[in-house]
């Protein structure tokens, strides 16, 4: 970072302040921290009497840092910022990247865990002023007595079991617990499904898991413990039943808990209960119910009718829907088949009428409704969506927001629409949108799709430009993507770049992918290039051979095939490296592979050029050793083309 930063800063400082100002003015409107356009206000020059008093500028406390941060561009030659502390730990492959970032995160978590577990050793407060977030958190309950305060404390610490026990004790003692606190308790129980929450110190790993399951439908991923949590007479229902007059909040907690833990029909019956008690539901309850709607009905039409019914009840009860309602409806429509396609746009326009701006998650659902994986949809929907969103900076508002980019780029890949892909990528650069690309895993998917599309659609120069920009600073391509790249090289006839790509391949850890390496060798052996290129090919081929020989410990060793060996030999022969080629030829025997006749023929031609009679004879002997059917032909050629002594004959 240091270098790029200082460069950027120097760059700015060198310019005169006027230019700087102009520059910043250009940059500012794009940024979210500018609360009003006061920065650009100039005194009005319309009439001398009129004095325009500029509005007071309100800056956030990070404004200076944000302005500074905006001067730093991404350095395509540097690795990710989090690895810049220690050059030794600069990841070179995607597995290293994963390993290092996870270990960094888990190191932090371990430290946090120790601080929280043994707070007595971390009491010294060095910071001036006091920094609360560096101090250990209290994990043990401080209040021991049976009281409402103690209950509140346990609720705040999210100790489900302890809180429920305390509540029972309070009930037995006859101490009344206020409705508010009981609702909080209910929230807690329902949120954690009546289990104590697991230690929340592995956020990175959890990310990976959730993303891994992303493609499965979300309702399938309940862990077994949670599925059974809404069994009959669990604590949530028991506490709820003890309430003399449950209010909206109590019902809301119960319904949301039921929906979260898969008790969908129960949620709807609780909702009926709520209506019978002459209460109104709140917006989050409706959101939960809309999410649950597709689960309780079988047919597409019925699902949709239920959702419409719920929306009507919202209107009746004068509950204002929010963005999450919109997204829940659209998400439910994804599972309504053809109904979804007809209803998606009316829903969005309805929400516009309620002045709710769709977030990226809404567009993501919209795209998913119209483009099912494997089917070719109408391309114009993506185009329309892109017209709508391009140039806008989005703030994260919905957990599904982070899905938009990978969905959009998937559709581009499916429809081979490079133009839209560029627009998607451009949108990613606007404002803070890069945050919405999601975690490392999603970033990888996005870049893989984008790059594959480039390899497929663009000419090689453009591809290489992107390649240099993305690899390896933000993206570590998989072997499949690298094969796409090789194919792109092949189509555009730029095979001379192969040695360079091989170096990258080796660094990216794909040096031992047999299929990839064989493809590389085939490409090199296929055509005869000019002398210079052949030389580099030969170097590269020998390097590949080394890869076969050494083979890192723990990694899968590559085994020679006849094809790869003959490709290797022909590459070396083309570069006039007869001696090296001869060595390789011997490998056929040691690895029990059989060379083809054409190869030996080619070899013989090469020997003839140098006129080495003995080697020609050896070649014949080798050929005879393999019992090749072409041996007599080879003998004949040798006899014709070489001057042989009697003995040799």
């Amino acid at each position, binding site marked *: 970072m240091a270098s790029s930063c200082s460069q950027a800063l120097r760059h700015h400082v060198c310019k005169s302040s006027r230019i700087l100002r102009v520059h910043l003015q250009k940059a500012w409107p794009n940024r979210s921290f500018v609360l009003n356009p006061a920065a650009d206000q100039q005194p009005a020059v319309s009439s001398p009497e009129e004095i325009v008093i500029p509005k007071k500028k309100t800056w*956030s*406390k990070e404004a200076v*840092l944000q302005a500074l*941060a905006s001067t*730093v561009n*991404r350095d395509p030659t540097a690795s990710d910022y989090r690895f810049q502390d220690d050059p030794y730990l600069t990841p070179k492959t995607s597995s290293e990247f994963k390993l290092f970032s996870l270990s960094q995160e888990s190191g932090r978590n371990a430290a946090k865990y120790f601080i929280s577990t043994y707070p007595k050793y971390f009491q010294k407060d060095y910071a001036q002023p006091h*920094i609360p*977030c560096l101090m250990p958190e209290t994990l043990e309950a401080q209040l021991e007595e049976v009281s409402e305060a103690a209950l509140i404390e346990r609720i705040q610490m999210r100790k489900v079991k302890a809180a429920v026990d305390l509540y029972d004790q309070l009930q037995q003692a006859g101490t009344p617990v206020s409705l508010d606190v009981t609702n909080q308790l209910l929230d807690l129980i329902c949120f954690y499904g009546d289990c104590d929450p697991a230690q929340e110190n592995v956020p990175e790993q959890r990310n990976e898991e959730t993303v891994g399951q992303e493609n499965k439908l979300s309702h399938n991923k309940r862990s077994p413990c949670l599925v059974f949590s809404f069994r009959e007479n669990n604590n949530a229902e028991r506490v709820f039943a003890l309430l003399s007059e449950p209010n909206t909040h109590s019902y809301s907690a119960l319904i949301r808990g039921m929906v979260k833990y898969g008790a969908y029909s129960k949620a709807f019956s609780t909702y009926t209960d709520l209506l019978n008690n002459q209460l109104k539901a709140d917006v989050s309850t409706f959101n939960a119910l809309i999410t649950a709607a597709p689960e309780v009905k079988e047919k597409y039409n019925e699902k949709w009718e239920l959702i419409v019914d719920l929306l009507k009840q919202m209107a009746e009860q004068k509950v204002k829907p929010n963005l999450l309602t919109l997204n829940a409806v659209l998400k439910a429509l994804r599972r309504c088949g053809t109904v979804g396609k007809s209803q998606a746009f009316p829903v969005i326009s309805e929400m516009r009428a309620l002045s709710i701006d769709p977030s990226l998650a809404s567009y993501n659902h919209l795209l998913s409704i119209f483009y099912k994986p494997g089917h070719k949809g109408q391309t114009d929907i993506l185009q329309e969506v892109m017209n709508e969103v391009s140039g806008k900076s989005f703030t994260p508002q919905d957990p599904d927001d982070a899905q938009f980019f990978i969905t959009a780029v998937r559709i581009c890949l499916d429809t081979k629409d490079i133009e839209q892909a560029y627009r998607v990528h451009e949108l990613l650069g606007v404002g803070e949108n890069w945050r919405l690309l999601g975690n490392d895993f999603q970033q990888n998917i996005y870049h893989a799709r984008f790059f594959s599309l480039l390899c497929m659609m663009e000419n090689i120069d453009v591809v290489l430009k992107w390649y240099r920009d993305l690899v390896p600073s933000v993206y570590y391509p998989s072997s499949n993507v690298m094969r796409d790249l090789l194919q792109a090289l092949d189509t555009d006839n730029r095979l001379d770049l192969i040695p360079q790509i091989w170096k990258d391949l080796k660094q990216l850890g794909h040096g031992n992918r047999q299929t990839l390496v064989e493809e590389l060798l085939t490409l090199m052996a296929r055509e005869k290039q000019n002398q210079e290129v052949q030389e580099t090919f030969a170097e590269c081929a020998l390097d590949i051979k080394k890869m076969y020989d050494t083979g890192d410990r723990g990694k899968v060793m590559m085994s020679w095939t006849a094809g790869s060996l003959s490709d290797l030999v022909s590459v070396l022969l083309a570069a006039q490296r007869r001696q090296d080629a001869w060595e390789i030829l011997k490998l056929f025997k040691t690895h029990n592979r059989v060379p083809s006749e054409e190869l030996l023929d080619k070899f013989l031609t090469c020997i003839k050029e140098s006129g080495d009679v003995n080697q020609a004879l050896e070649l014949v002997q080798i050929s005879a050793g393999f019992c090749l059917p072409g041996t007599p032909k080879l003998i004949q050629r040798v006899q014709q083309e070489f001057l042989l002594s009697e003995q040799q004959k």
Partner: protein
Amino acid sequence: MYRRLLININQVRNRLIHTHNTRLTLPSTKCKERESFAPVAWAPCTSRPLGTSSISFSENKESSTSLSEDKGKTPEETEVNAEVNTDGQRNTEMNEGTEISNATLTSQLETEPVVKPEDRKQVEKTKSGKESLLELLGAMKVEVTTVRKIRPSKTPRMSERPDQEPMESTHSMFQRATAEGSQQHGTLNPELVAAVSAAASTLPNRHQAESELLKQLRKHEAIPDTQRRADIGHIISDMKVGKRPNGRSNVRPTSQIRFDDDGKGYTQDRGITSELDGKVFCPTLWDIDLANQIVQATNQMPRNGFEEMIQWTKEGRLWQYPINNEAGLEEEASVPFHEHVFLEKHLDESFPQQGPVRHFMELVITGLAKNHHLTVQQKKEHIDWFRDYFRQKEDVLKEAEAYLN
């Protein structure tokens, strides 16, 4: 007797002021002489760095001449005192008239230690008369020299001294100041000293009064001094420290939960919950969870050092980058400037409307109005201290007809 004495003193003082004025331009030789001894006096006095101002001299003199309470004085100090005394004497010799009129008093002063307690009060009065005279003479003379001379040598010393007191409430400092013995200080404005003497001269125990008043003033010189040296970070930190004492609180405030429960950058999404904050309920577990999910789903990794600093700022780990001139003034942010500058309204109720006390207080508020290191609250406390002080001395002041209402 007392009355006559006062008149006497007043005359003397008036005359003195004249001589003082003339002398200001006069004695360059004397200055040199002083220069030679000044370093000697400096070196050994560690516990009480001999105030370069007139005041500490006068104090010393007071204590040595009066009840000789502090025996523990170093010989150097007494030497200095002797010098001062002789200086003072020399000065008094110049004013022959007063010398003669006070001759009797001097003899009385010498016999003072053996005076019986029942006579004490009267003795004190007389003593104060005489002493104040000497005092003033000495003080004024030293002023002339010290202001010019010793100051340069003082400054490095001041900077050497560690910041022993980060900002406390000034109020407690006042209290301590009165409790403690004399203190070391920077020079005070001679005008101010004169005003103090004037106010104090109305009191029977005028030395004590004067020194108390001066101490109070000097305190205020001292506080801004420490503040000035502390950089802005210290000011901020001190303010915070003052507000909430260190040590971790066992019960987490409710607002903190939202911050702690998700490792990183949760505050970013406060936009969602902040709307709810304003309403009746605080964010429930569900809202927290939603925000948490959003944070988990999005990429929160900083891309460069500045973004990391932004993250730290949000987490409260990093000192806030100043974005305007009011950085670190959270405490005073809501206080308009006129509260700082127009302090007369605080003088109205319980201070005399005219006379020396009023004059003194007007100078005090002028000084406070210009002091940008104190908060309004501290300024009020300062004035309140004087209010209490003068109220305590009210009967004495009334007797001296200095408390005019």
